[in-house]
C-alpha cells in the first residue's frame, strides 16, 4: 500500500461546532483505514474565541499533530492571521464566507477558496449551525472519502433526534451540490490526495486518552468513580458517567474534590474498585486524603490531568509541571505509585495495571497525564474485549491459618501486604484508621508499634518493584547514541514522530527513553540502560524533553540515578512540542524562542 498522509485543520469560534466537525473528520479517516491523531486547541469560554481541531492521518502511524497542513477550513476570514505559519503553496484554505479579500494577504502562497456555507445553512437548511457539517462534506470530497460514512456517523451521533439528522443530511447534500456546480474546477485542481482504502487492516479504536483511561478502568473492574468537573479530566467523568447504563458502575459528581476523593476511599473500604480524577488545582484539595489512603492502606486510583499552573493557570492548555507535586504529594511517608503513560494504548494498559497494583498492594496509584494527550484522539489497536478479573489481597483470597486466630487487618508480613476484610462480606470486623495504628487497627502512640507499622507499609515498595512498567527505549541504542532524549508521559508521541521524520534524513537518530513510571523510580532498570564509562567521560549529550519551566524531570533523574550532567529542552506555554521543531533543533542546534534550553 502506498504511503498516505494527510493534515487537516478546522478553526472557528466556540459555538461553531469545531470540535464535533474535527471528531467526525477524524472518524472518517479512521474508517478509511488510516491511523489518526486529532488535536484540539480551545480557550476557556463557551462562545467566541478561537478554537481548532487538527487531524493528522497516516497509513503508517499517527503519533501526534503536524505543523504543515493540506487543507484548512476557517469559519471566519479573520482567523487566517492565526495560521499564517502553517500556510504554504500546497495548502488549500476553505473560508466560510461569500468573498475573501486576497489583497490583504499579498504574501499568501496557499490557494484560498471562499464558500458561503453559513449563508447556505441559514437560508436553505434554516440552521446556520449545520455549516460545520458542510465543512466536513467539502473536506471529504477534497480527500475523495466515501460520503456514506459521514451519513452513518451523523445517524449514530444524533440517534433518536430525527430533525437534527435530517438537517445535517440536507446540509451535506447542499454542500456537495454547491461544490459540484460552483467550484468543481478549482477544487479538483487542488485535490492532492486520493485514497485507496485498505480494508484488510485490523480494526483500530479512535479515542482520547481520557477515554482510554476509562476503558482500562472498566476492563479492570472499576465500580465507583467520584469526581468534580475540571478541565482536562472532565472527559473521563463524562465517559464513565455514560457507561453506567452498560456496566455495574456508580459515578458520583461530588460537591467538591475533597468529597470526591473521600467518597472514593469510602467505596474502596467497602470493597469496590474506586477511582477519582481531576487536574492539578483539584488534586491540591485531595492531597490530605491521599495520605489517608496511605496510612489506612486503601486501594485508590487517581487520574491527575495536568494543565499549566500556578493557580487557575491556563485552564484548557497542557503542561507536565505537576510532576514533582504528585511524586511528593501527601504528608508523611507512605508508598504510592505514579504512572506516566504516553500513548492512548499505554493509557489503557496502565489504567488496568493501576487497579491491579492498587488493590494488590493496598495503596494509591496515580495516572499522571496531561491535557495534550488526554483530550486528543489517537488510534490504538483494539484490545482483547473479554477480560477476566480477580480480587487481590482480600481476606478470603489469602490463607490466614487457623480460624480461631484473631484477625489482624494490618498484620506485619514479609511482603508488607496484609489480608483485607470487606465489611458486610467477611464476618471479621476492623477499624480503618487515619491515626497510626496497631495490627488490629486501633490507634497507638507506642514507639515500637509506630515504627513497625511504618516499616510494614514501606516494605510494599520493594514488593511491587518487579510489577512496575520499565523505561522504554526507542531510536538508537542508548549505549551508542551521541544524543539521548529522556521524556515522561505524552512527550513520547512527539518523539516517536521525530524518529519517523528522521527516517528520510541523513542525521544520526538520537536514543529516546520514555519513562512510564516515575515513582517508585526504577533506578536499577534505568541505570542499566547506560554505558557509564561513556557517561562519565561526557561522550554523550543527555537532554530531558519536558513540559515544565524548571526541568522537573531532570531533577527527578538526578535524585534517583547517577546521572549528573543533564540538559533540558523545555516548553511551558501550554502548547505541545512539534516534531518539526525538534527535527530543526537536531539538524541546526537552533530552536524557536518558544522553547527554552537549560
Amino acid at each position: 500500500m502506498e504511503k498516505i498522509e494527510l493534515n487537516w485543520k478546522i478553526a472557528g469560534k466556540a459555538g461553531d461546532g469545531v470540535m464535533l466537525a474535527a471528531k467526525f473528520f477524524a472518524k472518517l479517516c479512521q474508517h478509511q483505514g488510516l491511523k489518526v491523531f486529532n488535536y484540539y486547541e480551545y480557550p476557556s469560554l463557551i462562545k467566541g474565541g478561537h478554537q481548532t481541531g487538527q487531524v493528522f492521518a497516516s497509513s503508517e502511524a499517527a503519533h501526534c499533530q503536524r505543523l504543515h497542513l493540506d487543507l484548512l477550513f476557517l469559519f471566519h476570514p479573520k482567523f487566517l492571521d492565526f495560521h499564517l505559519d502553517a500556510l504554504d503553496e500546497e495548502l488549500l484554505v476553505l473560508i466560510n464566507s461569500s468573498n475573501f479579500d486576497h489583497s490583504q494577504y499579498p504574501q499568501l502562497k496557499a490557494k484560498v477558496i471562499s464558500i458561503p456555507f453559513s449563508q447556505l445553512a441559514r437560508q436553505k437548511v434554516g440552521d446556520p449551525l449545520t455549516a460545520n457539517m458542510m465543512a466536513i462534506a467539502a473536506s471529504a470530497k477534497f480527500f475523495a472519502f466515501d460520503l456514506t460514512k459521514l451519513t452513518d456517523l451523523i445517524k449514530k451521533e444524533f440517534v433518536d433526534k430525527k430533525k437534527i439528522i435530517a438537517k445535517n443530511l440536507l446540509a451535506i447534500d447542499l454542500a456537495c451540490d454547491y461544490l459540484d456546480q460552483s467550484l468543481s474546477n478549482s477544487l479538483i485542481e487542488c485535490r492532492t490526495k486520493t485514497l485507496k482504502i485498505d480494508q484488510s487492516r485490523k480494526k483500530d479504536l479512535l479515542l482520547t486518552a481520557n477515554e482510554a483511561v476509562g476503558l482500562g478502568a472498566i476492563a479492570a473492574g472499576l465500580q465507583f468513580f467520584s469526581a468534580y468537573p475540571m478541565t482536562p479530566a472532565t472527559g473521563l467523568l463524562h465517559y464513565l458517567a455514560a457507561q453506567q447504563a452498560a456496566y455495574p458502575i456508580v459515578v458520583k459528581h461530588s460537591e467538591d474534590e475533597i468529597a470526591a476523593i473521600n467518597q472514593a476511599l469510602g467505596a474502596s473500604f467497602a470493597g469496590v474498585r474506586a477511582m477519582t480524577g481531576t487536574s492539578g488545582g483539584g488534586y491540591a484539595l485531595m492531597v490530605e486524603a491521599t495520605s489517608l489512603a496511605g496510612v489506612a492502606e486503601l486501594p485508590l486510583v487517581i487520574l491527575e490531568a495536568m494543565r499549566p499552573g500556578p493557580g487557575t493557570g491556563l485552564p484548557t492548555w497542557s503542561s507536565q509541571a505537576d510532576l514533582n507535586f504528585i511524586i511528593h504529594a501527601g504528608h508523611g511517608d507512605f508508598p504510592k505509585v505514579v504512572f506516566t503513560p504516553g500513548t492512548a494504548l499505554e493509557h489503557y494498559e496502565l489504567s488496568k495495571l493501576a487497579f491491579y497494583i492498587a488493590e494488590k498492594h493496598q495503596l494509591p496509584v496515580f495516572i499522571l497525564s496531561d491535557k495534550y494527550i488526554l483530550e486528543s484522539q489517537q488510534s490504538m489497536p483494539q484490545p482483547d474485549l473479554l477480560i477476566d478479573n480477580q480480587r487481590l489481597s482480600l481476606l478470603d483470597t489469602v490463607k490466614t491459618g487457623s480460624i480461631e486466630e484473631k484477625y489482624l487487618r494490618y498484620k506485619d508480613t514479609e511482603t508488607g501486604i496484609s489480608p483485607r476484610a470487606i465489611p458486610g462480606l467477611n464476618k471479621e470486623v476492623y477499624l480503618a484508621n487515619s491515626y497510626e495504628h496497631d495490627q488490629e487497627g486501633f490507634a497507638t502512640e507506642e514507639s515500637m508499634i509506630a515504627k513497625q507499622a511504618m516499616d510494614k507499609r514501606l516494605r510494599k515498595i520493594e514488593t511491587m518493584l518487579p510489577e512496575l512498567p520499565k523505561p522504554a527505549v526507542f531510536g538508537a541504542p542508548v549505549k551508542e547514541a551521541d544524543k539521548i532524549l529522556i521524556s515522561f508521559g505524552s512527550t513520547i508521541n512527539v518523539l516517536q514522530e521525530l524518529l519517523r521524520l528522521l527516517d528520510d534524513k541523513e542525521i544520526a537518530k538520537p536514543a529516546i527513553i520514555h519513562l512510564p513510571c516515575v515513582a517508585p523510580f526504577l533506578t536499577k532498570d534505568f541505570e542499566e540502560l547506560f554505558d557509564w564509562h561513556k557517561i562519565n567521560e561526557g561522550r554523550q549529550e543527555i537532554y530531558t524533553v519536558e513540559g515544565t519551566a524548571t526541568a522537573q524531570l531532570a531533577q527527578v533523574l538526578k535524585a534517583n540515578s547517577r546521572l549528573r550532567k543533564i540538559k533540558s529542552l523545555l516548553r511551558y506555554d501550554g502548547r505541545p512540542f512539534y516534531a518539526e521543531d525538534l527535527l530543526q533543533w537536531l539538524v541546526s542546534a537552533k530552536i524557536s524562542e518558544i522553547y527554552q534550553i537549560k
Partner: protein
Amino acid sequence: MSIQIPDLLSPISPTWCPGCGNFSILTALKKALIELDLELKDLVVLFGIGCSGNMADFIKVNGFHALHGRAIANAIGIKLANHRLKVIVTGGDGDLYGEGFNHLLAAARGNHDISVFVHNNERYSLTTGQASPASKKGTVGKSTPQGVIEEAINPLALAISANASFVARAFAAQLQELVEMMKEAILHEGFSLIDILQPCPSFNKVQDNKWYLEHTRALKADYDLSNQEMAIKQVLKKGPIELGLFYRDQERPAYHQELAQLKNKSLVEQFPFKQDLNLGINDFV
C-alpha cells in the same frame, strides 16, 4: 445473629474527662445497636476527629476513623458501594458543622441513607477548648479572647432547608430518649441527623448537665413532624431549647434507591469477574 454486648467490647478504655457527655453517647449507641436486629458485619461506624472521634478505639465495629470533617463523604462512598450496610457517622460539632459542613448539606440534599450523630458541646475540646461554629456569639476562648463575633449556626434549620429527611435534637444525659432516637434514625431510610447536646466539663463550664436540664424541654406531644415549613419555624424559635424529632419525610427515596444499577444487587456483589468491553468501545469503532 444480632449484636451482643461482648461483640462491641474494645481492648481500649475511654480516655474522656470525668463527666464528659461522650460516655453516655457511647452507651446509647451500643444500646441502640444491640436493641436493633443488626448483624455486626453489616454495620459500619465512621468517626470524626476530636474527643468524640476517639470513640473509634472504644468500640469494636467495622470502623472508619476519618480525616477531620470528611467522615460523611467516606460514608456516602461506603453506602453506594454496599447499600446493605447500615452506615453511621459520629463526630463533633467542630468536625461536622465546621470543617465538613459542606458534606453534611450535600448528604442531606442527596438523602443518602446514613445516620449522622453530632456530639455538640459547642467547643473544639481536643485542641483545648476553642469556640466552634455552634458556640454562642461572645464565647471567649484562647483563639477568641475578645469573644466570638460570628453568630452560632443553627444546624437543624440548615439541615431541614437542605431537605434532610430526618432531623432531631437530643440531650446526651437523657439516655433512654437518646437510644430511642438513635434507633429511629438508623432505621430511617434516608439521611438522618441527630444534634446531640453534650456538656464539656473541661472547656464549657457554663453549660453543664444542670444548665441543659434547665434550658431544654421536649417537643409537644401533638407536634406535626411532617411539615417542613413549620419545622424550620420551630427550630428557629427563641426560648427553651426543644428536644425531639422536628422533621421527618418518609416518602422521599434514598439516593441509592434512585440508581437503576443498584436495583437488584449492591455494587460490591456485582464485581465483574468477567468483563465484556464491547459496549465500552461503542463510540470508538
